[in-house]
Every structure is written in structure tokens, then in C-alpha cells.
């Protein structure tokens, strides 16, 4: 995971392993749900991502949390976009 603004994606790795792309996949999965358990998220992201790895998914979740898209509470991941509207 990278924090610098200039290079959000590393040129040395496949773009589908980057936290930005995996974060996009996670947002696609939780698009319609207010909350989702981490077990369901992992089982779905395995099918969706070409290069699946556990640590990359965790990095992507941290990336989404920093940018204010998701929130956590023990096993659940909350979609902040839907929770704010209601």
C-alpha cells in the first residue's frame, strides 16, 4: 500500500494486485449492502480478483478506511455511503 500522492500504484507490480484495484472490487461487492461480514467478503473476493492474496485485501480495506468509504465493527464492514443517506 502506498501513501504518496504521486505514485498511488506501484509500477513494479501488476495493477490488479494494487490496493486501489482490490478496493474497487470490495466496493463493487458491498455496493448494495449496508454491511457485510468479513467472511463473506473474503469468499466473494476470491472469485472476483485474479491475483487474490490475503494481505492485499487487508491493505485495500485500510486504503478504503483512510479515504472514508468503509467503517469496521468486529466482524462487519459498513458501507458508509448507504449508511449516511438513511
Amino acid at each position: 500500500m502506498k501513501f504518496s500522492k504521486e505514485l498511488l500504484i506501484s509500477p513494479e507490480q501488476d495493477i490488479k494486485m494494487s490496493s486501489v484495484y482490490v478496493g474497487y472490487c470490495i466496493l463493487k461487492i458491498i455496493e448494495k449492502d449496508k454491511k457485510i461480514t468479513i467472511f463473506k467478503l473474503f469468499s466473494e473476493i476470491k472469485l472476483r480478483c485474479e491475483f487474490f492474496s490475503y494481505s492485499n485485501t487487508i491493505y485495500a480495506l485500510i486504503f478504503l478506511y483512510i479515504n472514508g468509504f468503509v467503517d469496521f465493527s468486529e466482524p462487519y464492514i459498513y458501507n458508509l455511503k448507504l449508511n449516511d443517506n438513511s
Partner: protein
Amino acid sequence: MINNSAQKTKGKNAPIVGGNISNSRIGDEYNIFEAKSLPNKPREVKSILKLICLITDYSRDTNVNVNQEDKDLNKKINIRFKKFKASLSSQFVKLNAWHSDSYEQAISVADISETQADKNAEYLRKLSVKYLSERENNPLEALDGLTEYFTENLSTDIDAVDFESSAIRFYLYKQLIACNVFPNPEEL
């Protein structure tokens, strides 16, 4: 082999009480570190993975370069290494047939972060430039030297029982294409 004294407790993944520790299979089904332990990976994949681990170890002290590198393969092969173009490409074609699948598998399993990938690339750049200047700008000899260097260091590793040096060479070729081995100088 399970001892006669060992008793299996109830449950699917229950540990074996009183037996050898290696027979215990606690939570085998949900082992999230299965990628690290490499139970049944072929030798080519293992050797590339161990090489990545070794480079990750060595690149601990390198700093990440913020500047964008000039990554022009066309310039490199057709102008800089014009003399060696034929032998470089023929060697790569031979190795690619053997190792391309295992390389992809190893890269997807290696599980290194993006910052670590940057560090590894920076380490390889520095090391390969050093080797190239020692061998009078001959990329083939420099690649030989790099392969030897990594082979020696891998063979001293305790875990490395068997590995293929051609897989290491293929990894270096792939990094050459990604312009991390022998990076183009700025004035080219």
C-alpha cells in the same frame, strides 16, 4: 507415522494427543498462511519464491526511489545492447517456454506489498548496474554473474534443498524486460 500411544481427539481437525507435533493438523482447512508454507508447489515455483524472499531480505536497507525511471525496452534492446540482441532474445524464448507459468504462479503467491516491490526493484537496479560495469557492459556475462551470485546465496540457505538456477535466470530476464535489471542511464 502415528504412534500407537497417540489418540485422536474428536472432531475433524482435532489435534492428535500424545503424538508427534508434525502429525497435528490444527485448523488445516482454514490455514490463511497456506501460501507461505508452500506444501506442494513445484520446484520452479519454489525457487522463484525463495529468490523473491532473498531479495526482500537484502533490500531491507534500500530507500524507495520517488523519481520515475525511464522504462524503454525498445531503446535498451535495439540501441544499447544491439550486439547481444540475438542471443538475449533466443535465450529468453527458450526459458520462457519452461518457466512462464511457474513465474506467474510465484508472483501471484509471493504476497509482497507494493512498497516492498518498489524496494526490491531499487535493490536489483543498483546490484545489476554494479555487475554490468564490472563485466564491461556485456549483459550476458553480467546476467551469468548475477545468477551465480543468487545461486550461491540461495544454496547457503537452510531451507533451499533443491532449486533451479534456470528459474533464477528467467526471473532476472523478466526483471530485465521490466527494466529493473540494467536500467537505462539518463543520457541514453
